[in-house]
């Protein structure tokens, strides 16, 4: 399934006058959702930048039906909506959660984990801009090591939580990573997810010019560098099979990766560590560990036909 730009719908899904900052990755991601899934979609959005991006009543800057919901329980609200649609004989409606990294990895984690464990039939997308942006750039469980935020003024001391792996461990049918730097890959994954029933999780890397301190014209470039440096590997786990996505395949070989410094130096949030080799080293080691996991997952989830049959059995 290859997505070609010329085949994508040309309709406008993000409306002029929405409240996103210039270069906003969330505004980009939201557009791609409808490009991928069409109109049979309702969105559930917890507190976060996307609550604001919609703009102010009585207008809406995003062309979706949306249930805005409290910060901690987006997945639950979505599960309830899906149950309602099923009761009303409308199994085909895609109920999609669109949440930030805070609303997913931190305060919303319990709710999401519950929905994943129940294998609720929803698509959960986390727009990961690696901090709480709505409240003005505070650290989250998905902020990387070393990054400045207003609550880690000297740089974060802990590494990013590996949420996609945690979601694979929930034994849900579909888990993928994506990036706003690779829209076709994201759209393809959304379309694949749409054909699967059960809990589907897509982790969208969303570099944020405001919170990461880079020029708004660079959002796609920074996103692509995250992939090229190996900091953000694109992969999918599809009912028991783990695959690196084509854009990330070359970077299995560490020698092909762009040096991390190229990625870091574009972002003001890493300014205070850019000249500290020992700090950079911590991030390099993080990348090595990440790829060790990926290697392990690739080996583990490259199953024989028989094992694949077993692994794909979801309620």
């Amino acid at each position, binding site marked *: 399934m290859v997505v070609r730009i010329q085949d994508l719908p040309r309709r406008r899904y993000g409306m002029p006058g929405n409240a996103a900052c210039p270069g906003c990755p969330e505004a980009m991601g939201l557009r791609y959702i409808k490009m991928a899934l069409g109109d049979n979609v309702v969105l*559930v959005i917890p507190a976060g930048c996307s609550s*604001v991006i919609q703009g102010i009543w009585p207008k809406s800057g995003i062309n979706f039906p949306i249930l805005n*919901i409290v910060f901690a329980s987006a997945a639950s*609200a979505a599960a309830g909506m899906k*149950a309602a649609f099923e*009761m009303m004989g409308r199994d085909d409606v895609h109920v999609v959660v669109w949440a930030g990294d805070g609303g997913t990895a931190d305060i919303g984690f*319990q709710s999401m984990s519950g929905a994943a464990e129940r294998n609720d039939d929803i698509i959960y997308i986390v727009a990961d801009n690696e901090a709480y942006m709505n409240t003005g750039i505070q650290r989250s469980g998905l902020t990387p090591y070393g990054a400045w935020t207003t609550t880690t003024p000297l740089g974060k001391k802990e590494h990013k939580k590996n949420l996609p792996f945690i979601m694979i461990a929930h034994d849900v049918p579909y888990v993928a990573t994506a990036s706003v730097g690779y829209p076709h890959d994201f759209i393809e994954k959304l379309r694949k997810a749409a054909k699967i029933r059960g809990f589907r999780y897509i982790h969208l890397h969303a570099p944020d010019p405001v919170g990461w301190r880079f020029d708004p014209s660079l959002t796609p470039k920074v996103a692509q560098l995250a992939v090229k440096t190996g900091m953000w590997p694109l992969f999918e786990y599809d009912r028991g099979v783990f695959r690196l996505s084509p854009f990330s395949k070359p970077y299995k070989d560490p020698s092909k990766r762009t040096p991390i410094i190229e990625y870091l130096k574009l972002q003001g949030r890493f300014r205070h560590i850019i000249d500290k080799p020992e700090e950079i080293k911590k991030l390099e080691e993080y990348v090595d560990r990440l790829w060790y996991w990926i290697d392990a997952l690739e080996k583990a989830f490259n199953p024989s036909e028989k094992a694949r049959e077993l692994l794909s059995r979801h309620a």
Partner: protein
Amino acid sequence: MTVMTLTGNYAVAYAVKLARVQVISAYPITPQTTIVEKLSEMVDTGELKAKMVRVESEHAALATVFGAASAGARAFTATASHGLLYMHEVVWWAAASRIPLVMAVVARAIGPPWNIHVDHQDIFDQRDTGWIISVAQENQEVLDLTLQAFRISEDPRVYLPMMVGLDGFILSHTMAPVDVPDQEEVDDWLPPRRQPYYIAPETGVVMGNIVPDDDYYMLRYSMQKAMEQAKKVIEEVDREYGKRFGRSYGGLVECTLCDDADYYIVITGSWAGEAKEAARKLREEGYRVGVARIRFIRPWPGEMVRELAARAKGLVVFDRAISFGSKGPLFLDVAATAYGLTSMRGVIGGLGGSDVTADDIAGVVRDFVGEVEEKGSVYEPLYWLFPAKYRGKFEAKEVVA
């Protein structure tokens, strides 16, 4: 109609079934648990055609039924005490979204220390959220109120969610004969679900996005207006229900022995039973005492309370909760409604399930009547009806303004 012997919790479950609820989600907590269990069984055996979303917390439970209701399904949840506190954020969210919903609250004390017995602190904690809040006295009323809750909440003049309160253990786990209406009768009486808007791909509806401050203000105003309308709707539904099923409760306030009363006990919940017994005893002694049982904490039945106060020599308000640093929450509403009209005493009793007997209540009323008759006018906003073994060791009447 069938007479069944049911606990209060099972009365809730049967009402939910009769209302043909489509989506249920709940998280267990004593003493609510048997509601979830019974409903799970009904759904799993096919007795009730509904989805049961077995969530991992109460916050999720209310968010789930709210999501379902926003998409247009009739939805229900139930909780108690800490569960209710845990979902508090969503309680507000649901009400101001104007999405009809029904929740049973099995009243229970709040920790620490852990205590699973009844008081009304959890219910009063929700007082300002915009939910219609009712409290039952006995199991039959639990079933009736739960059924009526769907009708009230889904009435276009109201469109606010509704809680049905029932006292932990005293009702939730105690069996009593309950008239359970037939499905056809209920189908005939309860119209299909109505709601102001719903979310679906074709509606394009967006709920809950940012509004300008002035419009926010007006939304709050409209909730208050809906609460006022709800008073009418509650009375109407109570009357119609009475015609159809043979039971009416007097709407927002059930008044017992009120016709010629000089003094009223104002109370809510199951201990109104003890209050009525106390009133009967006191009448035998020559005191003209009536009982105004507040069935709805919200909307507050101000008109009725004011009317009572205007013709009363005094009101004794019994609270099973306290607003620390102030008074009992029920008393606060009564006083705000009837201040200056009559004498008042605000009694705090039965916290954490501590026992209050009809004799205890009669004693407090007798004492109050004596004081009023002697002094002419009494205002005692905080009177401690201590558990028996502590009585006399602490000062019962506190001097507070």
